[in-house]
């Protein structure tokens, strides 16, 4: 009897656990709820405001927003795709686009009729897959510029005008290297371009380090490589051959990491992705300037007791300045349980109506021109001049914007390029070693 009772109890417990599991549905999906994920905590209030507008315009539909940190975001999203607990709509990054397209987890959005001309140039086209179908709607954009400590620049006798008209070349570094050298100060107060400068005892580096830059070098070497006329692959989108073996590229990398050997840029050993990124070095007064992205504008502006300004990237050997223009998008999961609602929400996210609301928050540049204008005005209200980020997009004559590399096997490219670049920067390995890495990458892409 006792045994039977125990068995019955155990059975009941198992049943209750099983049914409990079946009831637990973390997505909260239903026909009137659209689940939406994003990673940037600064943008959460702006999108919450957007969701309110959407719910007002679509009575009966609700948007449930979840914010997750960048690294957890992708792990959880992947797990969600496998377990069927993915959100209906999520913020997508171009770096992951190729992989998600390969895995066929994205819903085609051609019927939303997204027009290139409604958004800043190039943003809409990036989200067309190799099959010619659209998998993302333009959401926002960013470029890279040179943040600098205004007081340190003044002490070095460098005006905003001078810093905005620098030029560089891989041979002697041009006026850009001269400025960076002059901003560098050693422990005894000697500047980088003064006699007796001690490169092993630097107090303030002219340029902060942001590490080796993986395969994209977005906030490291990409502006220099692109202004020297180099491209990641043989064509703008869905290329099949990377060009890290190019002599032009390798000469740029040699010069760029060479800044650290001269003591003008912080060495690789000072960089840590967790504890000491470029913005931390500027905030701590250990670096006078840093190449960084528009998504960091509010962070740099918020450093207490420091006046941080921004300048255009330098003009390169091609006679143009260059900056990476990257844009995020909103994508719908193929397995979404509420595709009709998700389509409506994505269309709303891509509209001027929502993007102007987001722009007004002054945390990011929305993809539509009206949204961008609203953001510029909002930054101005906060007394932040963002011209260094917006001018390259508006001025096609003197500036070149280029996209994040869009290819298959993006994760493999990163896995191979990360140690390769760190070896050159940190261990002084020759840039010609990139020939072999490039061969390995192209072999993977040719599969």
């Amino acid at each position, binding site marked *: 009897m006792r*045994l039977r009772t*125990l*068995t019955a109890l*155990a059975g009941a417990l198992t049943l209750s656990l099983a049914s409990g599991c079946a009831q637990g549905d973390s997505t909260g999906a239903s026909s009137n709820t659209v689940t939406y994920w994003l990673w940037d905590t600064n943008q959460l209030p702006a999108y919450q405001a957007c969701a309110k507008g959407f719910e007002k315009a679509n009575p009966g539909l609700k948007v449930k927003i979840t914010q997750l940190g960048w690294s957890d975001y992708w*792990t959880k999203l*992947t797990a969600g*795709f*496998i377990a069927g607990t993915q959100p209906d709509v999520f913020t997508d990054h171009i770096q992951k686009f190729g*992989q998600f397209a*390969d*895995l*066929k*987890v994205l819903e085609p959005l051609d019927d939303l009729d997204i027009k290139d001309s409604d958004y800043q140039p190039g943003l809409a086209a990036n989200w067309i897959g190799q099959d010619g179908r659209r998998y993302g709607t333009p959401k926002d954009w960013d470029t890279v510029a040179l943040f600098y400590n205004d007081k340190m620049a003044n002490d070095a006798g460098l005006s905003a005008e001078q810093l905005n008209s620098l030029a560089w070349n891989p041979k002697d570094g041009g006026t850009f290297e001269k400025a960076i050298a002059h901003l560098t100060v050693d422990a005894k107060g000697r500047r980088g371009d003064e006699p007796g400068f001690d490169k092993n005892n630097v107090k303030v580096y002219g340029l902060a380090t942001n590490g080796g830059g993986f395969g994209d070098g977005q906030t490291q070497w990409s502006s220099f490589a692109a202004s020297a006329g180099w491209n990641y692959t043989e064509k703008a989108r869905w290329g099949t051959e990377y060009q890290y073996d190019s002599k032009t590229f390798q000469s740029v990398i040699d010069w760029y990491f060479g800044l650290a050997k001269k003591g003008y840029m*912080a060495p*690789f*050993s*000072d*960089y*840590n*992705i*967790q*504890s*000491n990124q470029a913005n*931390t*070095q500027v905030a*701590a007064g*250990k670096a006078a300037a840093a190449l960084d992205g528009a998504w960091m504008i509010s962070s740099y502006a918020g450093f207490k007791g420091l006046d941080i300004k921004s300048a255009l990237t330098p003009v390169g050997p091609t006679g143009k300045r260059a900056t990476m223009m990257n844009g995020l998008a909103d994508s719908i999961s193929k397995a979404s349980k509420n595709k009709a609602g998700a389509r409506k929400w994505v269309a709303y996210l891509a509209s001027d109506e929502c993007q102007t609301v987001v722009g007004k928050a002054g945390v990011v540049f929305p993809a539509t021109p009206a949204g961008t204008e609203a953001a510029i005005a909002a930054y101005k209200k906060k007394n932040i001049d963002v011209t260094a980020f917006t001018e390259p997009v508006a001025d096609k004559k003197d500036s070149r914007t280029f996209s994040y590399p869009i290819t298959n096997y993006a*994760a*493999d490219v*990163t*896995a191979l390029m*990360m*140690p*390769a670049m*760190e*070896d050159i920067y*940190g*261990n002084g390995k020759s840039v010609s070693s990139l020939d072999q890495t490039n061969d390995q990458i192209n072999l993977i892409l040719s599969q």
Partner: protein
Amino acid sequence: MTIASNSPPSRLPLGDASGAGTKQRIRRAATRENQGDGRLAALFIAPALLGFAVFLLWPTLRGIYLSFTRFNLLTPPEWVGLDNYVRMVNDPIFWDSLWVTVEYVVINIGVQTVSALAIAVLLQRLTQSAWLRGIVLTPYLMSNVVAGLVWLWILDTQLGIGNEIISALGVDRIAFLNDETWAIPTIALINVWRHVGYTALLLFAGLQAIPGDMYEAAKVDGASEWRMFWRITMPLLRPVLAVVLIMTVIGSFQVFDTVAVTTAGGPANATNVLQYYIYGSAFGRFQFGYASAMSVALLVVLSAITVLQYRLTRAGQTDLG
């Protein structure tokens, strides 16, 4: 069956089991009794067995199967035979990862075991204070990730207080976690810091089992602490030490979180330990087949090391007469 069913085991004439019939009766009764116990035992074991089957046995078998496939999680696995193993043997990053892991384990286990043993002996021979014994365990109360982050900040080349002190002493700053040479020893020592108290506690428990009169007798004979350590403590602690070693070596081979938090496998793969490489291949690059093959390799290496350790240290036997 019928004979025994009427005779409760407690009433069997155990003291007078001379006749063959009685022996048989006892055996039958015991079998019957065992059957009753067996069912109850099975019931109690069932949850653990279920857990073992669901969380260990099935994943292991499935992992072994997946190691022979190309699998990206979202589309069905595709059988590729030994391809993943061939790739593994020819993959210099795999061998480098294995080497880096071994380097980590040697430093981690070497330093940890010696320090833990020293702490355990000191705790046993010098103090009775539970407070002092407890304090040794405190780093273990912290999660690996938090411990990693705290040390990352302390040791940061440019901003860490550790390097500020080194610099104030007039010595060049050390890129503890950002230099090829220093990174693995630093991570190994961070984990020694966190685990040494726990290991010491296990050894301390082993020391408590050694009869105190042995030390008293040795003292009467005029033996020094040093001599007592080598002649009494070490031989009698050996089985416990062996088990602790087996457990810590297995744990050490699985190092992941500290690496993920402090160096992310860098600089230039210098801390790309095997678990981190497996994780990156699976969850970063969606190569679950290849990652499974490497996991199987790790399983084989760990099993071999464990068997070897068990044999060499005679972990199953004690010298306590």
